[in-house]
C-alpha cells in the first residue's frame, strides 16, 4: 500500500471526495459559485468559455467539462447552465453519467433567475454531499496515481533542483505502474528533438515534434517570435549557454521514462506511463487540462513562487529557492533548496517529493487547498471569441 484513496466504479482512484459544481458557460459562473459557497463538501469550477466561439472551441469546452466531471476526485456533479449557451450541456451530463456518476443539472433560464436557481442548486448539492460522505478511503498503489507535471514562475534554481528531483519522483511513479502527464508544450521548444528521442517509437516522436511546431505556428500567426534571442542576455549571465540547456531544465521534470503517447488538451490517457498532452504553460489552462485528463494529484515546481492551485485536484508546490520558501509560506508545500546548498542529493529530494505526493494523495491538505487560492481557472481554446 502506498496511499489511501477512493476507488471509483470506473476503476480510477480519487484523492479527494467532492461534489463538483461545474458551470457550463461563463454566464452561469455567479450561480455556480453561490451554490458552492453555501454547501460544504462541494468544489466549484468556473471559466470564461461556452458561448460565441467557433465550433472547434465549443466542442473543446464540451469535451473538457466532460473530462472534469469524470475526474475521480468528484463523486457526483451538479451542472449549472444558463440555458442559451453553445456548450452541449446534455452531452456533458450523459458522458459523466456513462462513467457511473450521478449528475444533476439546473438551468437558470428555466428555473427563473439566479435567486431561485441558487436555492434549487443548494438543496440538490446538500443531498449529493450527504451521499458522497459515505465513501471511504481504501489502500491504493502507485499504479492508481495520475500525476500532472507543471513548472511556473521559474528561475535559475528550477532546472537544477526541483525539476530534476520531480523527474526522479515521476520516474518512480511510472515504474510503479502509474501515469505521469507532461504539458507545457511551449517549453519543449529547443529540446523537442531530445524529448522525441525519449518516445517509445518513432511515430510518437514525430507526434511530439508536430505538437511543438503547431504551438510555434500558433504564436507566429499573431506576428510574434517566441524564440527571439533565446537564451536571453539574462539567461546567459545566469549561466545558461544554449536554448537546448534552457528547455532541458524545463523538461527535466518528466524524468527519463519513455513517452508512451501524445494527447490533445484535456484528453484522458488510455495508457499508463509517461504521456505528453498539448497545453500552453499558463496556470488556469494547464491545471484545468491536467484535471480534465484525470490527474488526481499535480506537482508544481516554482522558483519565484506561483500561488495557484485547482478547485478539486491537490496541487503540491515545490521550490528550490530558499528565499521563496521563507517568504511565501502560505503557498509553498515543499522546500528542495538544500540541493542548491549541496546539502541534499537529487535522489533524496526526489524521494521526499514522492512521499509528499503520496501523503497529499491520502488526504494531507496543500497550501493552495487551505487558502482556497484555486478559483481563477479557464479552458484552453484556440480560436477567437466571436
Amino acid at each position, binding site marked *: 500500500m502506498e496511499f489511501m484513496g477512493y476507488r471509483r466504479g470506473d476503476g480510477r482512484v480519487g484523492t479527494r471526495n467532492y461534489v463538483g459544481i461545474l458551470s457550463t458557460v461563463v454566464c452561469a459562473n455567479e450561480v455556480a459559485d453561490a451554490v458552492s459557497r453555501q454547501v460544504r463538501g462541494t468544489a466549484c469550477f468556473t471559466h470564461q468559455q461556452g458561448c460565441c466561439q467557433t465550433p472547434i472551441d465549443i466542442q473543446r469546452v464540451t469535451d473538457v467539462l466532460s473530462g472534469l466531471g469524470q475526474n475521480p476526485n468528484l463523486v457526483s456533479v451538479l451542472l449549472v447552465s444558463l440555458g442559451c449557451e453553445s456548450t452541449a450541456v446534455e452531452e456533458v451530463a450523459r458522458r459523466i453519467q456513462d462513467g457511473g456518476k450521478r449528475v444533476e443539472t439546473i438551468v437558470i433560464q428555466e428555473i427563473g433567475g439566479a435567486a431561485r436557481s441558487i436555492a434549487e442548486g443548494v438543496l440538490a448539492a446538500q443531498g449529493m454531499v450527504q451521499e458522497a460522505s459515505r465513501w471511504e478511503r481504501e489502500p491504493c498503489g502507485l499504479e492508481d496515481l495520475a500525476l500532472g507535471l507543471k513548472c511556473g514562475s521559474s528561475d535559475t534554481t528550477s532546472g*537544477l533542483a526541483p525539476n530534476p528531483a520531480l523527474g526522479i519522483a515521476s520516474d518512480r511513479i511510472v515504474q510503479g505502474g502509474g501515469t505521469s502527464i507532461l504539458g507545457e508544450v511551449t517549453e519543449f521548444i529547443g*529540446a523537442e528533438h531530445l524529448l522525441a528521442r525519449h518516445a517509445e517509437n518513432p511515430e510518437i516522436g514525430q507526434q511530439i515534434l508536430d505538437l511543438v511546431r503547431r504551438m510555434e505556428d500558433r504564436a507566429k500567426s499573431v506576428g510574434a517570435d517566441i524564440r527571439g534571442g533565446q537564451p536571453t542576455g539574462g539567461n546567459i549571465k545566469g*549561466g*545558461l*549557454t*544554449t536554448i*537546448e*540547456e534552457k528547455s532541458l531544465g524545463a523538461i527535466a521534470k518528466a524524468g527519463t521514462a519513455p513517452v508512451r503517447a501524445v494527447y490533445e488538451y484535456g484528453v484522458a490517457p488510455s495508457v499508463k506511463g509517461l504521456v505528453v498532452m498539448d497545453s500552453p504553460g499558463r496556470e488556469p489552462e494547464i491545471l484545468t487540462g491536467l484535471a480534465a485528463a484525470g490527474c488526481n494529484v499535480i506537482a508544481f515546481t516554482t522558483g519565484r513562487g506561483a500561488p495557484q492551485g485547482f478547485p478539486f485536484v491537490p496541487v503540491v508546490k515545490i521550490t528550490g529557492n530558499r528565499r521563496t520558501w521563507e517568504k511565501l509560506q502560505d503557498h509553498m508545500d515543499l522546500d528542495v533548496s538544500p540541493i542548491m546548498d549541496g546539502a541534499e542529493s537529487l535522489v533524496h529530494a526526489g524521494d521526499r517529493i514522492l512521499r509528499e505526493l503520496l501523503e497529499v494523495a491520502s488526504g494531507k491538505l496543500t497550501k493552495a487547498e487551505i487558502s482556497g487560492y484555486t478559483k481563477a481557472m479557464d479552458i484552453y481554446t484556440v480560436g477567437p471569441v466571436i
Partner: protein
Amino acid sequence: MNIDAIVIKETDNVATALRDIRAGEEAAIGVGEKTAKIPIQEPIPYGHKFAVRDIEPGENVLKYGEVIGRATAAIPVGAHAHVQNIESLRGRGDLAKGGR
C-alpha cells in the same frame, strides 16, 4: 555531504556551480550520491558550468545526460564552459538547413 557544484547525470561532462567558485579552489562535485574533487582553473560564477573532464573541440557537451551544444575549443577539466567555448546546435540559420 556538502558540495560546491552538481553533476545532474553521471554521463555529463560539465558540472553547475552552486556558489561562486574561485580559481585555484578544489571544488567538491556531487554526482548522484557520490562526490569527487575537481581543481578549478578560472572563476566560476553561481549557476555557471565547468568541465569535469577534458572536452575536445567538436565534442558534444552533456548536461541532464543530453547534448546541450558542441565545444568550439578545448575545454580542459576545471575550465569555465560557456558561450565562449560552446555553440548551440539549434535554430542555426547559418548552418545547413535541416541539420540537427
